[in-house]
């Protein structure tokens, strides 16, 4: 018997690796209630009134930072956005000193995005307030994976038993790593599809299959999850040209027409139309890419609520 979790066990959300399946379930259930709020005329609820959230973004981001920002506002938290362009210890203030400064401002929760894997863990070690990882280097992007799990569950009824193929630059993708942990914990089968140059060592030990050929990797998929391919990887000799990548790994209308009619096409955005995905696939009825954005808001509200609103009354949910 799986015990139903009623709260998260830690003050921080650093990655899906350390979440239990029942905690993921709790976040997804809570996000359902949040999504209902988002459909109301008046979206604001007072759950986190008097709480302060600081969004600390060391990397440029529009969709994730605005999603966290709005999620906090809909729950009536005070949200402050800090964009810091310099993150190296050699320039400007060290992350440790920034952390101390923020702590002195009595924030209740810190959301951090940083180019260094482990930066949120570093903050969490020294800070009293909770820390949410909004993407750290190539490590994890847990809120993205949670919104993806939410989207799959909403469309397919459950996550368990679904065949999910993740296509693209797995090596450099924090989205892929978080999704692998989350999907495996929730009982999905995961296949990674990419040339070997984009597959990191020993990733099979995470319990996934690896396929180098697109068709072999996606033909029986229930969900095809495409990752953004970055042009600069070409300079690292990881693939030849975007044209060739699109030809061998892009999912286009023709490929889509060969897949199961109820396959879901997902993408964390922003898309490179014409490379990993074309218009026909991205804008098809199989695509849930825009739903992912809405669900991101609901999931982030749920996480804020679970990390900050515990002990409060649940009047706005019921």
């Amino acid at each position, binding site marked *: 018997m799986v015990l139903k979790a009623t709260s998260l066990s830690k003050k921080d959300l650093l990655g899906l690796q350390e979440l239990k399946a029942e905690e993921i379930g709790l976040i997804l259930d809570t996000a359902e209630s949040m999504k209902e709020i988002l459909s109301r005329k008046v979206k604001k609820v007072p759950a986190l009134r008097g709480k302060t959230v600081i969004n600390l973004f060391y990397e440029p981001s529009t969709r994730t930072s605005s999603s966290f920002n709005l999620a906090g506002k809909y729950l009536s938290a005070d949200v402050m956005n800090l964009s810091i362009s310099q993150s190296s210890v050699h320039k400007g203030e060290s992350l440790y000193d920034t952390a101390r400064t923020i702590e002195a401002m009595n924030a209740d929760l810190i959301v951090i995005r940083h180019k260094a894997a482990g930066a949120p*863990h570093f903050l969490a070690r020294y800070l009293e307030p909770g820390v949410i990882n909004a993407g750290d*280097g190539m*490590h994890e992007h847990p809120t993205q994976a949670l919104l993806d799990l939410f989207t799959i569950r909403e469309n397919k009824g459950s996550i368990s038993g679904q065949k999910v193929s993740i296509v693209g630059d797995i090596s450099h993708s924090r989205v892929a790593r978080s999704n692998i942990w989350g999907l495996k914990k929730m009982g999905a089968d995961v296949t990674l599809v990419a040339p070997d140059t984009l597959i990191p060592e020993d*990733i099979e*030990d995470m319990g996934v299959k690896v396929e180098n050929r697109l068709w072999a990797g996606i033909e029986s998929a229930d969900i095809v999850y495409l990752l953004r391919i970055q042009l600069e990887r070409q300079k690292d000799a990881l693939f030849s040209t975007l044209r060739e990548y699109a030809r061998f790994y892009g999912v286009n209308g023709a490929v889509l027409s060969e897949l199961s009619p109820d396959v879901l096409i997902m993408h964390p955005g922003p898309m490179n139309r014409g490379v990993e995905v074309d218009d026909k696939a991205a804008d098809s009825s199989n695509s849930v890419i825009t739903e992912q954005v809405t669900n991101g808001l609901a999931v982030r509200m749920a996480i804020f609520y679970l990390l900050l609103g515990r002990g409060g009354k649940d009047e706005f949910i019921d």
Partner: protein
Amino acid sequence: MNLLISNGRVIDPVNGKEFEADLLTAEGKIKKIGKDIDAGDNCRIIDASGKIVVPGLIDLHVHLREPGFEHKETIASGTRSAARGGFTSVFPMANTDPVVDNASVVEFILSRAREEAAVEIYPVGSITKNLAGEELSEMGAMASKGAKAVSDDGKTVASAAVMRRAMEYAKNFSLSVIAHCEDENLSRGGLMHEGYYSTVLGLPPIPAAAEEIIIARDLILAELTGVHLHIAHVSTSGSVNLIRRAKEKGIKVTAEVTPHHLTLTHSEVKSYNPHTKVNPPLRTQKDITALREGLKNGIIDIVATDHAPHASHEKMAEYEDVPSGISGLETAFAVLYTELVKKSGEFTLLELIEKMTLNPAEIIGIERGTLSMGETANISIIDLDTEWLLTEEEIISKGKNTPYIGKSFYGRPTDVIVQGRVVIEDEELRV
């Protein structure tokens, strides 16, 4: 003053003997070893009963950071740290500021050593000027001041042509060449060993091949030039194989391995603990097994610490911005005695002592590492029976950067004698 070390278990790797005896030193030399030595009056006595008495440990690979990086370590602090760990002779690497690439920097270090050092120092010169990998350092002048070896440690001499000429040139002056083997095209940007944990942690990986490719290159160049090549900090099973084949072929090569590469795997990195960041990186259990076998059967000749102290604030940062290195002098013997002798029984005590005393002395050519009569009185007395806990507070080195903090060990040097002078007595510094 004469010094009598009484009732210890004397272990001398030269003759492989272990026996209960007294040991008398006079004028910095070992004067007498035997039962019930009558020291006469005016003799300082150290009671070594229940402890082992061994040659002072020798470390061919340390970073003392002076001149240039005194906030990390100094000759004074680093040599006290060495003494605390039972070492009596250390070989600091050349990557200071200025780099040790001419005789005046060698002289500076030796003069600072005369003023400040608690143990013997043998400076290692650089292979190339300013470690730039282009022009050769003044090896002859450095050798005439006492340098025994040259190394660009911290960096590989990227050009095979320069490395070839460096080996030929070093050989003229009977210098050993110590090679840091890392193909920087393969390792660039890397932060940890390439494998499951680098994948899960999303940290840029360093493949084992980065080390092995340069080891293969340098072994071929050593065969071509006939120089004595010493491979620094061997960390992979593939490297052990390459060195084994080279030795079978008769190439003049020796090699070292660090205590951390013998005992810790890449899984240690999993909490992004900054003290696990080291170059070469911590590898796999399979590598540890191969390194231990290699050390046991002599393919790897010695243990060296690669003592790499850093200031605390430098380690308080994101993993990618933290400097690499482990502060290793104070734990080396204890870690290896505890793990390799006491717990696993893979090594005898004598074997471990040999690889930390006699073998390094022989491969680098100094008359140290034995307790024979008439030799320099460099001696460590070690308590093998008392368990001790490593805390940050008790580390003498300025570098508190070690993943062993919070762990318990056996094998603690209680008294250390350098050239007849007591530098550690009853676990306390006396200098």
